[in-house]
C-alpha cells in the first residue's frame, strides 16, 4: 500500500540521537585512525545520498517496490560500511520485507526515512565539526 503524504523531517531529530547513530570510534579504528579518510568517506556518502529521504518518500508514494528495495539495499550497505548498526539494521529489515513481498506501511516508511535523515544529519554535523 502506498505510504502517502510523507515528508522528510530532519528538524525533528534530537542531538543525542544524532550522536549515537554512527559509531565513530569504531569507524576510525577500522581505518587505522585516518581521520582525513573517514571525513572523505562521510562527505562522499553525503554527496551520494543527500536526496535519499525525498527519493524514498516519492518511491513510497508511488509504491515503486523495485526502487524502494534498491534504496533499502544501498542504504543497508552504507550503514554497514560507516558503522551505523541502526541504519544497517533498519534498512535490512525493510529490504527483507520487500523481498518477501510484504507491504510497507506509512509508519514504517516514515520511520525508515527518519533514520536516514538522522544518519545524514550526523554526517553533516561531523563534517562541520571536522
Amino acid at each position: 500500500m502506498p505510504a502517502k503524504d510523507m515528508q522528510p523531517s530532519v528538524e525533528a531529530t534530537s542531538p543525542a540521537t544524532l550522536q549515537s547513530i554512527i559509531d565513530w570510534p569504531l569507524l576510525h579504528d577500522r581505518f587505522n585512525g585516518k581521520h582525513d579518510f573517514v571525513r572523505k568517506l562521510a562527505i562522499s556518502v553525503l554527496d551520494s545520498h543527500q536526496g535519499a529521504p525525498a527519493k524514498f518518500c516519492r518511491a513510497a508514494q508511488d509504491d515503486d517496490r523495485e526502487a524502494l528495495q534498491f534504496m533499502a539495499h544501498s542504504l543497508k550497505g552504507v550503514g554497514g560500511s560507516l558503522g551505523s548498526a541502526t541504519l544497517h539494521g533498519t534498512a535490512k529489515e525493510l529490504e527483507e520485507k520487500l523481498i518477501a513481498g510484504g507491504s510497507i506501511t506509512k509508519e514504517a516508511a516514515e520511520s525508515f526515512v527518519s533514520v536516514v535523515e538522522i544518519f545524514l544529519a550526523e554526517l553533516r554535523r561531523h563534517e562541520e565539526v571536522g
Partner: protein
Amino acid sequence: MDAAPHILIVDDERANQLILEEMLSDQCLPHSVNNGVEALQYLRTAPRVDLILLDVMMPEMDGFETCRQIKADEGLSEIPLLFLTGLEGPANEELGLSLGAEDFIRKPFSPSVVFARVRNNLELASARRRLRDRNQELEILVSERTRDLLNEKQQVIAVQGLTITALCALAEMRDNETGNHIRRTQNYVQVLAERLRNHPRFNSELNDETIQLLFKSAPLHDIGKVGIPDAILLKPGALNSEEWAVMMRHAEYGHDALAQAAREFGQPIGFLRYAQEIAYCHHEKWDGTGYPQALVGDAIPLSGRLMAVADVYDALISKRVYKPAFPHAKAISMIVEGRGSHFDPDIVDAVIECEAQFLEIARRYQDRLG
C-alpha cells in the same frame, strides 16, 4: 610490467569504492567503475586487470550478468572475480559461484578479510598461470623429445634396413640364388602371416608389429651360407653326403652370427630374434625329420615354419642346376603332399588360400631368363 596487481572495483556506491581503494592502494593499483557496463568497457580496453571485485545490485547491469559476460569472454575469463555484496541468503552465493566467481564476500566486510581474500586469489591465479606456463613448456619439451625419439627410431629402422640389405648382398654374392628369391620369400612369409593372424593357433603371436619383423628378417634365412666353402656352395652338381653335411651347417652359422650380434647389442632386438629363429629353423620339418635340431611340430618356431613353406615353394618354382622350374600347380601339389609331414598343416592350408597372391608375387619378382 609493474609488479603491483591491478584491481578493478565495480560498485555503484562511491563510499564502497573509496573504502576498497583505500584498503588496497598500499599494495595494489585499484581502479573503480560504477556498474557492469562500465566494467566490461574497461576490461576490454585496459592493458591489465589482475582481479575484479564485483558488487551485485547495481543499475544498468547487475553483478551476476556482468560475471556471466566476463566468464564467457575467453580473454577475460581467467581473471579472478570476487563478489562483494550485501545480498543475503545462500542462493545468491550459490548463483555467484556457479557463474564462475572465485569467491563471495558479504557486506559489511572487514577490510582485513577482504584484503586476505584478494591476496589469496591473486596468489592462486599467479600459481595457476605458472602451472599453465610450465605445462606449456613441458608440452613443448615432450613434443621435441618425441620428435627426437621418432627421428632416432627412424634412423634405427633405416640402419636395420641397411644392415639387412648389406648382409643379403653378401649372401647373394656367394650363392646361386638371386636377390629376387629373397624378395619373393619375404613376401610369401608376409602373405601367410597376414592370412593366419586371426587363426586361433597363431593369433597370439601374429600382429602388425611381428608381421613387419618377420617380413624384415626373412631375407636373412640363408645368411649362414656365407660360411660355406665355395666348392660346396657353388658346386654345379649334386652334393655328396659329406658336402651335404657341411651345407646343412649354414643354419647353425646363420643363427650363431645373428645371436652374437644380438648379444653384443646387449638388449633384445625383435627383428634379430626372428632372424635367428628363421636362420636356424627354416629347414626343420613338422614330423621331426628336419635339421639342425630335428624339432617336432609346434616346437619349431612359427617363423621357421612359415619360412620353410615359403623357401620350398620358391625353390620348386625356380630353376636350379639340378632341376627345372616347376609350374605353380605342381609346386602347390608338392607342398600339399608335405602337409603334416614336412610342413605345419594349417600353414599349408593358408598357402592354398593364398595361391593367387603367391602367383602374383612370383610374377612381380620373377628372375630374368638367361
